[in-house]
């Protein structure tokens, strides 16, 4: 019987966890159940204000635990090339999302921007450089830690 090899993803360099008090393992990965530290991104979605809750619910499906909405105003006129930004009242949704989910979330948003009535908008992802604390990281990345509260 063949022993099933467990493939562990390579650790991601660059994402620092200042709150990690445990000794790093040989691979330099902090002590979480999933050995790979996966990068996080801030997904910024600008949509019409009336559609904010709709997109918040959709994005929750991509293991997004933390989202916040800021109200803003669009500046583009209707004749301008950024279609969908002609209405002035906008909602800016900031979602902390794991980088491996960004592609799927963007695909979903692209499809909804085209299909949903008054649902047009823009979205972009800004990569995180660091996160304060392992607990925060686990919450933001939807990763369960080995130790409760650790």
């Amino acid at each position, binding site marked *: 019987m063949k022993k099933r090899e467990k493939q562990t993803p390579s650790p991601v360099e660059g994402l620092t966890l200042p709150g990690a008090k445990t000794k790093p393992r040989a691979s330099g990965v902090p002590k979480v159940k999933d050995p790979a530290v996966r990068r996080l*991104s801030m997904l*910024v979605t*600008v949509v019409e204000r009336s559609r904010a809750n709709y997109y918040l619910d959709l994005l929750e499906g991509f293991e997004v635990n933390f989202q916040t909405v*800021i*109200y*803003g*105003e*669009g*500046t*583009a006129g209707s004749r*301008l*090339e*950024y*279609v*969908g*930004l002609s209405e002035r009242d*906008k909602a*800016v949704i900031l979602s902390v999302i794991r*980088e491996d989910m*960004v*592609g799927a979330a*963007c695909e979903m*948003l*692209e499809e909804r*921007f085209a299909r949903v009535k008054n649902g*047009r*908008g*823009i*979205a*972009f*992802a*800004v*990569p995180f450089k660091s996160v304060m604390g392992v607990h925060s990281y686990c919450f933001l990345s939807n990763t369960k830690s080995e130790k409760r509260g650790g």
Partner: protein
Amino acid sequence: MNFEVILCILNRGFADTAMDAARAVGAKGGTILHGRGTAAPDAEKLFGITIQPEKEVVMILVADKIKDAVLKALYDTVGTGTDAQGIAFSLPVAQTVGLTVSSTKTAKKEESPAPKAEQ
């Protein structure tokens, strides 16, 4: 085409001036957010800047080709030397969705003459 997001934090009431300056060098549109500024009182004295607490944040997604031009335009029109006392910086963007085909068309137009030039 790669994009970057420019964030410009300036005194309230100057967002339209900033957008006009950005549009003049090729930016297409942006989003204005309202905020409240904070700064250390010592820093205010040191740099001779008065911090007006009511702020506006202008968020503009631009192609990286025109990023420097937009930042320069913002510096000239709403920079720290002006009444707007604006600070602008750009962040790298990993992925963008929702921009229309026109920006891609522009990119193709710009790219297409290159092979001809080589021939």
